């Protein structure tokens, strides 16, 4: 557990340090992130021998203390968070289009890192509320980094997020009123099927869905994610929306009465199917490159929502493996997609999609990164995205009654293929000879390719990965 705590505290401490001394800002944060990554790996290694570690903060006894829990799932999520933070940080440091070495991107991203780790570790409903607020404020601050043009999107995001937090908080208060505890395990042991419990869970679900931008409460996402600086879009899409999803999954699997969970599950699965198609449809129609990538997040979250819905509907905890594989694969692929898209947008000097015409010749690496990431988003074998989809589809194919869901997922796959190819096809279009080749930045393009390679590399460790996820995800 101490390794996990180190991984939690270091980014935060380094953020305070660089805010205070304002020297070697990017280097300090990158170094701290690397150490934090190492610590997360150490924690992950440790958790293999001791699968569920708990820590009662302040050494108080349970119902009073806030509880941290370390399983191989959240250790893996910690590794993922640190990896992505590090990779995006590298891009932001070395790309010409990054935010600069001294900008507040650095301390803010470090706080984001710590807030997420705090969220993964915590098992306390109210503590989650505070981490969610923290996450919201960091995310909004990061969005405003790109200047006045992002203010409207940032404000919309903030307002919706604040009201979502209140929904969540009211739900927590009602649960506390009924059971008198805030700890997840305690609640799980005490919870019964009552009108108050249902109301409380419903309020929490609404708040969390809004925060995680799950369909139909996703309307704030495309604006906020498309208007943020590139590195920030990558962090937001890859990591921030997954935090509320994690809480949603834990509360519903642990606390929700079975019948209620099943009803919710059906709704989730339906919403997820709609999200797949509507997100893809919007991605197909938008004229802007980064907005397309942002809408793809809406669509991809549809997969997570379907998986969560079916998991609740059939009460099959095994599906959690698929859920978290989706999350990990999507996070890595989306980082690549956003970095590549942002790099192209900045190089061509236009946010229009049409600007990438001929990019396969002028910026082959970035285009390759986008295509490779897109491959995982579509779910081409043997990428991480494929792995997740495969685990999800197996039980669906097994029974004819489940085929409609399989059909929805296959349709979603086709739709995501359509928007990925929309970009790729344009890039392979004939390059306009008369325009000058823009100055490209090879290093930045390589950096945008890295996460995509990692997501395809997941296939190499698919067996242990599934094992880790399945042991960690079924407490």
């Amino acid at each position, binding site marked *: 557990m101490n390794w996990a705590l180190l991984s939690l505290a270091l980014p935060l401490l380094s953020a305070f340090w660089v805010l205070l001394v304002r020297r070697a800002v990017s280097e300090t944060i990158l170094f701290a992130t690397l150490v934090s990554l190492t610590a997360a790996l150490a924690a992950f290694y440790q958790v293999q021998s001791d699968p569920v570690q708990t820590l009662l903060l302040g050494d108080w006894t349970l119902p009073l203390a806030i509880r941290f829990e370390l399983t191989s799932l959240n250790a893996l999520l910690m590794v993922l968070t640190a990896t992505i933070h590090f990779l995006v940080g590298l891009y932001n440091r070395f790309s010409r289009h990054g935010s600069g070495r001294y900008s507040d991107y650095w301390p803010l991203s470090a706080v984001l890192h710590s807030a997420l780790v705090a969220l993964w570790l915590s098992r306390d409903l109210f503590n989650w509320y505070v981490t969610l607020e923290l996450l*919201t404020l960091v995310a909004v601050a990061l969005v405003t980094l790109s200047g006045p043009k992002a203010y409207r999107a*940032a*404000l919309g995001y903030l*307002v919706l997020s604040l009201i979502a937090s209140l929904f969540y908080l009211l739900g927590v208060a009602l649960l506390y009123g009924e059971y008198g505890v805030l700890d997840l395990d305690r609640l799980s042991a005490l919870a019964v099927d009552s009108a108050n419990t249902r109301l409380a869970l419903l309020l929490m679900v609404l708040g969390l869905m809004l925060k995680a931008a799950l369909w139909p409460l996703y309307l704030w996402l495309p604006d906020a994610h498309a208007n943020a600086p590139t590195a920030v879009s990558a962090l937001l899409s890859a990591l921030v929306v997954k935090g509320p999803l994690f809480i949603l999954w834990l509360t519903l699997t642990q606390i929700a009465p079975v019948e209620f969970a099943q009803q919710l599950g059906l709704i989730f699965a339906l919403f997820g199917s709609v999200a797949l198609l509507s997100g893809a449809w919007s991605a197909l129609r938008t004229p802007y490159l980064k907005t397309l990538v942002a809408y793809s997040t809406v669509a991809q979250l549809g997969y997570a929502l379907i998986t969560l819905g079916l998991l609740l509907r059939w009460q099959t905890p095994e599906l959690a493996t698929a859920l978290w594989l989706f999350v990990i694969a999507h996070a890595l692929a989306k980082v690549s997609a956003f970095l590549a898209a942002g790099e192209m947008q900045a190089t061509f000097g236009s946010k229009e999609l049409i600007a990438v015409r001929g990019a396969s010749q002028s910026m082959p690496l970035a285009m390759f990164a986008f295509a490779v990431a897109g491959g995982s988003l579509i779910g081409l074998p043997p990428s991480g995205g494929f792995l997740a989809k495969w685990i999800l589809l197996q039980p669906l194919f097994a029974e004819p009654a489940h085929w409609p869901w399989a059909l929805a997922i296959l349709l979603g796959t086709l739709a995501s293929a359509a928007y990925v190819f929309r970009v790729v096809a344009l890039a392979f279009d004939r390059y306009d000879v008369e325009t000058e080749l823009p100055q490209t930045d090879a290093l930045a393009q390589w950096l945008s390719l890295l996460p995509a390679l990692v997501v395809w590399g997941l296939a190499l460790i698919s067996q242990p990965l599934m094992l880790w996820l399945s042991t960690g995800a079924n407490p």
Partner: protein
Amino acid sequence: MTEFQLFLGLGLLLFLLGVHGLVLSEHTIRRLIAINVSGGGVFLVMVSLASRGDSVDPVMQALVVTGLVVAVSATAFALRLGSALTRAESSDREGDH
């Protein structure tokens, strides 16, 4: 009905009214007032739940203190963001002329 139920119901009503106000308004200050009214409702629910016993539940009180501080920080930032937005948009408009 006891007074805890009176204030519990009042809190829920306040929460809903705030949400209602939020849905109906498109103005930054109004929206933030609505959010804070909603927040007041949630805190009212929490405190009325805390006051059920013989003495008042200290944990719930502490949670509300935390909630208040979080709310005021977020509100402060949101209001200033709203002012910055108004300024940015008015200077944009002047730039167009």
